């Protein structure tokens, strides 16, 4: 005998199969006393949760109270039905990509990249584009078949596209790190709409990246691909190489 998980009905796990246990922490505009605690409990109950244990509360001042609770959910998910769009080209290392491109692409691919609009977090795009790279993986600049132009921080969408046209870019790379109030969605949408309006959308590969970007989200926003936290130049280079080999 052993514990058996049904993948069609997975549930959070605390210490017993399917106990549905979750930890929740939040502030409420409620007093730091039994009444506030009851408000917290009722709120969690209203959210459909069970076995609610409000294990801690503390006065935050200004009429707010912090609550920590453990609860059980009844929700389940069918793991077998989940499909996520992920970049599915194989990942090659630098030498392999160089070799692959020498054989299958046979020309330099021009890549123009930037942190657009209000965003100045360049570390991510630098990690992908610049010589030095990230975590011991060199950036695109180091590859034999990429010509890279990294425009840096807070580049207006218009300027990025103008540069892409000027340089006859094959690929546009866009980074968005700040996500507060979905500003990244706003900025990414602006760029892609501009590209469409200017008839550039289908002439270049549009790739975005950032800690809250997934390939799925990128596709949804009209990009060709998206790369999230922990992606490396190797991922991006391989993807581009395969694209231009076709």
């Amino acid at each position: 005998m052993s514990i058996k998980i049904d993948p069609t009905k997975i549930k959070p796990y605390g210490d017993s199969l399917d106990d549905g246990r979750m930890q929740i922490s939040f502030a409420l505009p409620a007093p730091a006393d039994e009444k506030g605690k009851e408000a917290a409990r009722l709120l969690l109950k209203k959210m459909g949760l069970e076995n609610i244990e409000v294990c801690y509360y503390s006065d935050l001042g200004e009429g707010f109270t912090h609550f920590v609770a453990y609860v059980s959910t009844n929700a389940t998910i069918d793991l077998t039905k989940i499909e996520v769009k992920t970049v599915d080209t194989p990942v090659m290392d630098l030498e392999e990509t160089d070799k692959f491109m020498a054989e299958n692409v046979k020309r330099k691919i021009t890549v123009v990249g930037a942190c657009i609009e209000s965003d100045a977090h360049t570390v991510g795009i630098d990690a992908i584009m610049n010589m030095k790279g990230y975590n011991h993986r060199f950036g695109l600049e180091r590859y034999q078949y990429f010509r890279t132009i990294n425009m840096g921080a807070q580049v207006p969408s218009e300027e990025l596209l103008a540069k892409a046209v000027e340089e006859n870019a094959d690929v546009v790379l866009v980074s968005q790190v700040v996500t507060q109030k979905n500003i990244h969605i706003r900025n990414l949408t602006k760029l892609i709409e501009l590209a469409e309006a200017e008839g550039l959308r289908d002439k270049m590969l549009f790739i975005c990246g950032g800690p809250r970007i997934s390939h799925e989200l990128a596709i949804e926003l009209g990009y060709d691909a998206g790369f999230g936290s922990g992606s490396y130049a190797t991922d991006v280079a391989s993807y581009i190489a395969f694209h231009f080999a076709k």
Partner: protein
Amino acid sequence: MIQLTIDTNKIKEARNYAAKIVNSLTWLLQDYTSTTIERTVLRLMGIDGIAGDNTPIPNLVVEHLQQKKVLNRGAAYWLANAIVAKNLSAQEVAELVATNQLDLTEISAQPNQKVLEILDKISSENLAKIAEQRQIRQQAFEKYGRRNKPAIYVIVATGNIYDDVVQAKAAAREGADIIAVIRSTAQSLLDYVPYGATTEGFGGTFATQENFRIMRKGLDEVGQELGKYISLTNYASGLCMPEISAMGALERLDCMLNDAMYGILFRDINMKRTLLDQYFSRMINAYAGIQIQTGEDNYLTTSDAIEKAYTVTASQLINEQFALISGIEHKNMGLGHAFEINPAIENSFLYELSHALLTHTLFPDCPTKYMPPTKFATGNIFRTYLLNGMFNFVGQITDQGTQLLGMMTEAVHTPHLVDRALAIENAQYVFNATKDFKNEFTLKPDGIINKRAKQVLEEATDFLRKVSEKGLFQAMSAGEFADIVRTETGGKGLDGVLPKSEDYLNPFMDKMKTELKLQ
């Protein structure tokens, strides 16, 4: 290492009082036995299983002998006598007794020579099994390398042994060195060891031989995968100390919670019973190469950790002496202490550090077991996570043997899968980030830390002197330990204590004593 400036004569003085306290109990340890010890002898003879109302056969046999008022000759003798007479195996004899088909006292006395021969054979065979487990452990450590220091020790406590295995394996993958399967709340006062695999417990999982086996197997599997020997521990405490130790020795547990006085003080078990039981229990652990661990942290869950710090030190010294007379080497004495000072106190961290250094200074060769903050956990999981980090820091810089990781959900529930993983991550980060911290600093001789350590040692010495003058039993009766009053005739399990007769036989104890070079 960060060194305290402590007079070694002071340490000697304290240690001498502890030795005096323990040595004054020879009359008890040599001349008495207990029902548990006898059940243990039966288990070591290979007797297992349940009968009747789900009662373990060792219990039924011992009850039978007790009823017949012949237990003081030792269960081993009666079994051997029947084995010789009936030409049956020990298990077969025991089953007949357990099902009321055989009265051991009705069998005529067989030639002494024969009885001794058969006992020699059975005990040799069964001790060999334990020795084999000891060797397997030793080889594994040789192959994979020694245990980390501080070893990462985490508990699993789902109540269901199968869930426990999942959690334990996950913990091993994350970096745990030692897995403790916490026992269900009510087990320690049971005067028998439950049988078979169990799936329901409260705040813990029952300690049974089958559960030990299941967990050992799981850990061996994951250990092989990881190229690391994962240690297993449980609790030789309560009313069945030596039985659990015997089971642990047979199923290759690697450590054992096994305190000389915990049962008396914190479970109200009779003092004679506990002291007798721990004596044999520890001998088994010594023989099996199992590291014992003690429970000094318990003093601080009921008393103030600053005011009563000396009780920890005193208990460590007493536990050390009890361990020595059972044959436990210092390298297998996991003396306990804890990080339990009210975090709101100014310089609380300095006091914690001082106490931990004192433990290390007194027992430089022991793999001391350091217990996490629990009492001042509030349910604020973030704060508790931080407290645990500070505790891990002290553990690393004072070179503790075993770090029992704190859980952020202390004061909420026994650890969930996530809690344990985060606890391990916490310890690994702190241990690694502060690795050589201890070699960077010299402690000022007249600072808060040194002064505090000196004071605690002094208080402990005074206390031990008083106890050594009064005698341990009298001191306990006077509530000198943890303000808890325990009397020689009070507490659970006194009815299981009996004097040995002249012709008492316990081949296991005899052989182990010889091998461990004890008198």
